[in-house]
């Protein structure tokens, strides 16, 4: 066992994901506690240029044709070999479509404990601590990272990505990849997102609806407000999963990140997956019946009310103000 902190760098089609820098920032803090190194781990094929900007002391680079694109099976195999051989103190993965596909498998295969949905870490003498955010952001769970090696999946929000950046190129150590036969998952193709009617990431005013909209018929109430404001309508995951708005209007982790002047969050509780996509907004105004909704932690203005009661009145007043 060593005292290093490993960060499994997440990259997709030539682009390093922001969560990788968030994890590097967390790893730096942990490494100060353990006295070990921050080690970035890159899996890929001809992907050496991805090391640029990584705030790590060392890069372990695993190159293999079967690692050219992410598949859970190949990543799991390559990482299991690396982690069991080196036994780092902590291994950080993103709580994402990539990291979550492999973290649990690693935990079972290597009999190592796993902490998921981790938002922040801290050190207390030799103890490494984590705080995970669960129940849609309503509950925090705190504990000590188990020894000898702890696996972790991280959500954004606790560390700034720019703190995981470094202009200094880290030393790159190639690592031999084990034989990669018998893989059961293969990437057939990427399908680009449908070209949307609008690009919500470029809109200045967004009227966003969540579960509080209750049914499809009520969407019209939100659309009327959007029309009065000259805004575009978007939504959180439950509304899109119901098929009430197309995926091009989805805001959050699996959708788009938006950065409007005003983001009106109507009946949106503010689960971390949603909040992740709206932190670039200038002003967030939230309307929700639940005073404990996490959306009020990121909003500048809040209204504790049923959006359906507010909408017709607000639309009418906006129309009057614009002479519409």
């Amino acid at each position, binding site marked *: 066992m060593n005292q290093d902190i490993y960060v499994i760098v997440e990259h997709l089609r030539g682009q390093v994901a922001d969560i990788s820098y968030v994890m590097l920032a967390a790893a730096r803090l942990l490494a100060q506690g353990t006295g070990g190194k921050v080690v970035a781990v890159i899996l890929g094929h001809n992907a050496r240029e991805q090391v640029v900007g990584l705030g790590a002391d060392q890069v372990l680079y695993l190159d293999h044709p079967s690692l050219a694109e992410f598949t859970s099976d190949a990543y799991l195999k390559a990482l299991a070999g690396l982690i069991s051989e080196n036994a780092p103190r902590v291994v950080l993965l993103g709580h994402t479509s990539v990291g979550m596909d492999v973290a649990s498998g690693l*935990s079972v295969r290597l009999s190592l404990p*796993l902490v998921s949905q981790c938002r922040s870490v801290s050190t207390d003498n030799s103890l490494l601590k984590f705080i995970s955010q*669960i129940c849609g952001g309503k509950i925090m769970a705190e*504990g000590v990272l188990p020894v000898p090696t702890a696996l972790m999946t991280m959500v954004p929000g606790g560390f700034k990505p720019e703190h995981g950046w470094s202009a200094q190129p880290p030393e790159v150590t190639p690592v031999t990849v084990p034989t990669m036969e018998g893989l059961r998952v293969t990437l057939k193709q990427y399908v680009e997102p449908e070209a949307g009617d609008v690009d919500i990431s470029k809109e200045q005013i967004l009227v966003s609806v969540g579960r509080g909209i209750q049914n499809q018929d009520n969407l019209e109430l939100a659309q009327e407000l959007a029309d009065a404001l000259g805004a575009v309508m978007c939504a959180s995951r439950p509304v899109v999963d119901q098929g009430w708005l197309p995926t091009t209007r989805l805001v959050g982790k699996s959708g788009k990140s938006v950065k409007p002047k005003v983001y009106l969050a109507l009946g949106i509780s503010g689960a971390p997956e949603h909040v992740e996509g709206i932190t670039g907004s200038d002003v967030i105004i939230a309307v929700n019946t639940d005073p404990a909704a996490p959306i009020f932690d990121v909003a*500048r203005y809040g209204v504790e009310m049923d959006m359906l009661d507010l909408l017709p009145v*607000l639309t*009418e007043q906006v129309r009057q103000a614009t002479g519409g």
Partner: protein
Amino acid sequence: MNIIVPVKLVPDLVEELTIDSSGKALDTSWLRLILNEFDDHAIEQAILLKERIGGQVTIVAPDVEGIDDVLYTTVAKGADRLIKLVGDFAGGFNNHALARVFSAVIKELQPDLLLTGVQAHNDLDGSVGPLLAEQLGMPYIGYVAGVTLTDGNVIARKEYPGGLIAEMEVTLPAVLGIQAAQQPPRYIAVSKVRQAMKTATIEEQTAAELDPTGGLTIGRMFQPEAGAQATMITGEVNEIAARLVSFFKELGIL
């Protein structure tokens, strides 16, 4: 096609959550449990596949408060077989323990395909799907929204941020973590659920002893300070609307 859907119930976030006297766990005495919403999508996807290509859908769940109603509802939707795992679940359990219990029972069912929700909001030690996949020695793909079958293989549409989809082929048997079914979960009238209660049978199987190894010890649970950031606007609905309109003007959007 033998499709298994292992499901779990989670606290209803609409209700107020409180921490128990130990300060380390949720107070379960008043907790209302509901089906994990992603598991609901997994059930829907399983039934859609059955309707398309035939086969049998089996729902497996631990015996916790409210599980019978959830299971009967799945029969009304089109599930064929219900298995309730009876064990010491009342004291709480982590996903590692649940996955081990699932794995012991599901192995015997010789499944072709397992569908489960990609995650649950209370996951603290990984999600059930990939834990179970590894227990069973099967491959796993998560964040799936769309499943197609070709001879002996499955094509799963895996979601990445920004709407990008990766079409991945996986050999069977396999486990898929469902983000969203190809159609929203169907609505079932209460009368149909009552009907299912009369006709369907819930098989009980004894769960193996819960083994939480691989999970965590929580030192403290707490609620983040609510609404710490927002300035709350109060009053009658007319006054609130007027305040918002004046904010819109200040912000230069009206």
